[in-house]
């Protein structure tokens, strides 16, 4: 297999945007091309677009061709859309990676885009129910919050994890997002604000949840030769893994605080990269809800099972700790435009490993990890390095 690197990345402003689906494609594409001197749209051989529900939110399918035309890309090697609910962006990066590693393309853009906020606000939440099983789950009104609430309830009962420890994830990620001009929320949050915010699904409160967000992100992946020709500071894909436990809630581990698929995905990525969890400098993890970040510390191997609460409380997942988790602000602070999230995570690792993250810079960052999930039983992990 050939080596593959990120050579460019760009992110749109995330938020409740007065922008069309195509506007968001333009913004992320423009930001990515601006960050990649020497590359014009006509040079890009392939495009993969991660997008979950444009059929319902933009009343539009045929997304990859739309985005290619919007950006002036004329795919000669690869054109595809990936839909894997909230992990669609990272799943797209894996496709582009595999195509380049196999020698089928040299320069591919992966773009994630989602326009979730609708003129009718309640429709946005209704649409989110498409991500769980229609017949056996969504027909009862299920969307994501109660699923992750089951995990939080169990983690609290089994390990004594406290509401305050859950809240500290919200505080940390809102605080990080305040240094990210592209984040949905940029005002930060105090422990009191998080603990006093509205209850969504017991025990998860509003500031422990990611919001409904519009946004887009793009990265450019290149083969080793092309990457070295384009930049002195490529960011190398070192490892990748994906694993699934199941789709329906009742197919997952009986103890909802255990997410074995994340552990398997991480182990595959670590083994491929030849590194261990304690070498990771920064991790962009899928904090769709605060409990997901706590369980990620455990399943990714940053701490032992059951110790995530004390881990966040001691500051070990923040600047100055063992590993900086979600320096861009995570899904809680940046928002979660489904298909764009995994690509935005990669974009953050890109700027961090190049030392270009400004106020968010993690000192001497040389190894970065991204974790993207699409439910508690479906996980994708990527490991990126400054060295190949």
């Amino acid at each position, binding site marked *: 297999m050939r080596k593959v690197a990120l050579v460019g990345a760009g992110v749109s402003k995330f938020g409740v945007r007065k922008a069309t689906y195509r506007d968001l494609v333009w913004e992320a594409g423009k930001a990515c091309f601006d960050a990649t001197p020497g590359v014009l749209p006509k040079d890009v051989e392939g495009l993969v677009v991660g997008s979950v529900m444009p059929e319902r939110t933009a009343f539009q399918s045929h997304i990859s061709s739309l985005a290619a035309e919007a950006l002036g890309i004329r795919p000669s090697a690869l054109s595809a859309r990936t839909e894997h609910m909230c992990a669609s962006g990272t799943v797209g990066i894996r496709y582009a990676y595999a195509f380049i590693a196999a020698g089928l393309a040299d320069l591919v853009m992966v773009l994630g885009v989602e326009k979730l906020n609708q*003129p*009718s606000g*309640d*429709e946005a*939440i*209704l649409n*989110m*129910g498409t991500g769980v099983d*229609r*017949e*056996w*789950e*969504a*027909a*009862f*009104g*299920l*969307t994501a*919050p*109660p699923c992750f*609430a*089951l995990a939080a*309830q*169990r983690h609290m*009962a089994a390990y004594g994890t406290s509401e305050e420890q859950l809240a500290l994830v919200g505080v940390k990620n809102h605080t990080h997002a305040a240094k990210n001009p592209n984040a949905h929320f940029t005002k930060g949050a105090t422990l009191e604000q998080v603990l006093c915010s*509205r*209850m*969504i*699904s*017991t025990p998860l409160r*509003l500031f422990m*949840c990611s919001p409904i967000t519009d946004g887009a992100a793009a990265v450019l992946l290149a083969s080793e030769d092309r990457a070295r020709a384009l930049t002195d500071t490529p960011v190398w894909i070192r490892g990748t893994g994906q694993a699934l436990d199941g789709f*329906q*809630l*009742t197919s997952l581990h*009986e103890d*909802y605080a255990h997410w074995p698929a994340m552990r398997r995905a991480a182990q595959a990525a670590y083994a491929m990269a030849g590194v261990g969890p304690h070498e990771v400098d920064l991790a962009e993890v899928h904090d769709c809800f605060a409990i997901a970040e706590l369980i990620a510390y455990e399943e990714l191997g940053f701490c032992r099972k059951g110790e995530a609460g004390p881990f966040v409380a001691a500051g070990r997942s923040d600047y100055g700790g063992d590993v900086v988790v979600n320096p861009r602000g995570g899904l809680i602070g940046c928002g979660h435009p489904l298909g764009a999230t995994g690509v935005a995570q990669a974009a953050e690792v890109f700027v961090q490993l190049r030392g270009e993250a400004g106020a968010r810079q993690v000192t001497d960052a040389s190894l970065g990890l991204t974790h993207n999930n699409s439910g508690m039983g479906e996980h994708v992990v990527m490991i990126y390095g400054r060295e190949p």
Partner: protein
Amino acid sequence: MSYFRAIDPFPLESAEHTKLHEFYARLAGGRLATTRCGGCGATTWPPRGFCPECASDRFEWVDLPAEGTVHAFTVQDAGLPAGFDGPRVFAIVKVAGHRIFSILTGADPGAVRVGQRVALAPLRVADDPRGHPRWLPAFRVT
């Protein structure tokens, strides 16, 4: 033309639409049923027309007990989809070794506990587009 919105959030349950129709027919009569594989004999939840173990598509219907216990639950107060009211008690109910995802109807949200006994309480929802009645397998605290 005004702002247009249309979606049917409930399953198609009638015999002309699903091979799992028998589940819904029994549910309307207060029974909780599922499928047993005609190839290997495995009983699964939810009912299914294809066996994940032996790849058979032959199955027969078996009744499960109409009672179980709460394995896990949460109460959603806000952020529910349009057309669904809170507070809503979502629960994983343990029935004869199977985990069943459902809601608890008529429960005091503050009084629900893991291990509590619950019973099947079929929930009538909107008729299908051709006027056939539809039911979901909800539970109530006993």
